[in-house]
């Protein structure tokens, strides 16, 4: 077996599971309970908050824990938009944001906002000048992801942050895909709101967070008992949050070395895949997450590639996992200017801690054959070869 789908699902680090376990069995106090078990739970939350904060240099703000990156993106964009709609109702987003950002923007559109989606170049880099030009007196928020989970492209968020700040507009950065892969420093980014995800750093699923800079307000989207300073109600998932905290602590310690390791594997993998004829790299050749390999193969379709690899115990994917009902190709690849048939032929490999040289050898034993087999089945291939 060789697993190359870390962006869509990560195992939980054993040390994280160990840290979580007591909070499932013994330390079961509710953080809102007055007694000492409640106090312990409260302390565990504070401790996790501190650890996550340390990973992102977040001392100038607070972390609000959520059920994941999607909820954090909703809270950031819908929550900020609805809170400040009297100030202005224009927001700006890149066109390759995750669907949770795009659909949050669309929610605001239905509620009287105007949204400007900024184009990206062929490598997926957002047009910074266009952002600057699009900022109007009624613009209240700019949202740009740190890195794209699908094509791996890293955005010039520092540069964008500076421009946005100069204009006095709030800046949201979705760092779900970059956290634990490259440096996420909310100060250097100049970000006011930053979305974080636990599973992407080998923490449990069902947990995420939103960094909120001091002085920035959002309106909650889930209301109730007033937990998380009133910004996110619902009994806190203590074990999950403790796990996220532990994962953040481990990431801080280990991610740089691991990133270097994965980067080497990535570069080797890209080089070897591109040896297959009529195969191309998607995303930026250098400004790219250390664990991301996104390629396209002419004449064949991604899903059948994934299924063919699956038959050999190799796990890859076509794009960011979301339950697209429309069978449309990834909006990210289309935004990068790929033709639909090119987008349909794309394949995503994301590396993680478990991957080794051997995995790559195993993959490269299988992949050329699979590509060849599917091409032989494809009417497009025959045509292009003069059929």
């Amino acid at each position, binding site marked *: 077996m060789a697993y190359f789908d870390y962006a869509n699902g990560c195992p939980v680090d054993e040390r994280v599971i160990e840290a979580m376990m007591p909070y499932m069995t013994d330390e079961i106090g509710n953080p809102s309970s007055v007694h000492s078990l409640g106090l312990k739970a409260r302390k565990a939350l504070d401790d996790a908050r501190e650890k996550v904060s340390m990973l992102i240099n977040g001392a100038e703000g607070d972390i609000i824990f959520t059920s994941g990156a999607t909820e954090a993106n909703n809270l950031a964009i819908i929550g900020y938009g609805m809170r400040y709609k009297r100030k202005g109702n224009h927001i700006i987003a890149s066109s390759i944001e995750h669907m949770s950002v795009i659909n949050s923007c669309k929610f605001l559109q239905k509620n009287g906002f105007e949204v400007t989606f900024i184009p990206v170049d062929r490598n997926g880099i957002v047009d910074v000048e266009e952002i600057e030009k699009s900022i109007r007196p009624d613009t209240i928020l700019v949202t740009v992801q740190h890195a794209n989970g699908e094509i791996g492209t890293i955005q010039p968020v520092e540069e964008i942050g500076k421009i946005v700040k100069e204009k006095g507009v709030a800046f949201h950065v979705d760092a779900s895909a970059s956290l634990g892969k490259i440096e996420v420093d909310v100060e250097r980014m100049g970000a006011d709101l930053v979305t974080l995800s636990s599973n992407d750093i080998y923490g449990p699923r069902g947990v995420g967070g939103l960094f909120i800079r001091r002085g920035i307000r959002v309106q909650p989207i889930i209301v109730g008992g007033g937990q998380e300073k009133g910004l996110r109600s619902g009994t806190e998932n203590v074990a999950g949050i403790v796990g996220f905290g532990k994962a953040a602590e481990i990431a801080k310690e280990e991610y740089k070395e691991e990133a270097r390791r994965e980067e080497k594997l990535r570069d080797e993998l890209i080089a070897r895949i591109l040896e297959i004829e009529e195969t191309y790299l998607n995303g930026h050749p250098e400004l790219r997450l250390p664990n991301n390999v996104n390629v396209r193969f002419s004449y064949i*379709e991604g*899903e*059948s590639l994934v299924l063919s690899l699956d038959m050999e115990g190799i796990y890859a994917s076509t794009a960011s996992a979301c339950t697209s009902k429309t*069978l449309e190709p990834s909006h990210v690849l289309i935004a990068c200017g790929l033709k*639909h*048939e090119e987008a349909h032929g794309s394949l995503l490999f994301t590396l993680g801690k478990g991957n080794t040289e051997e995995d790559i050898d195993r993959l490269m034993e299988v992949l050329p054959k699979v590509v060849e087999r599917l091409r032989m*089945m494809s*009417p497009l291939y*025959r045509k292009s070869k003069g059929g």
Partner: protein
Amino acid sequence: MYSEKVMEHFRNPRNVGEIPDADGVGEVGNPVCGDLMKITIKVEDDRIKDIKFQTFGCGAAIATSSMVTELAKGLTLEEALKISKQKVAEELGGLPPQKMHCSNLAADGLRRAIVDYLKKSERMDRIKELGLEKELEKMEKGELDDHGELCEGV
């Protein structure tokens, strides 16, 4: 997502390829939508003597293509025209809802291959008898099959 039967056909597709001197050729789908199929048939005594497919597309597209060729082989043209999308899906133990329309094209491809055969053998009477004039018209105009319109990418 897919039934065992779908995966079995995906793993071991029947009748892959192209009949070199085919009597009829049917093409459906559009690479823009992620699906394109080409069916070639050999006909003898109004019976499908041989059939082959080529498909660019997802697992469902490949499995339905394979299934259609298996179902059609040996049938009379009239019988073969009765193979519906529904039937193909049933024989495969069902398809995911979102795959029913876009990736289940092979029956249409077969239909077009039959029309092409009848046209080439100049049997317009038979085309009329079997109610295939509209399909022929579309093919001559180079129109996409219905599915093309479903695909938002076009």
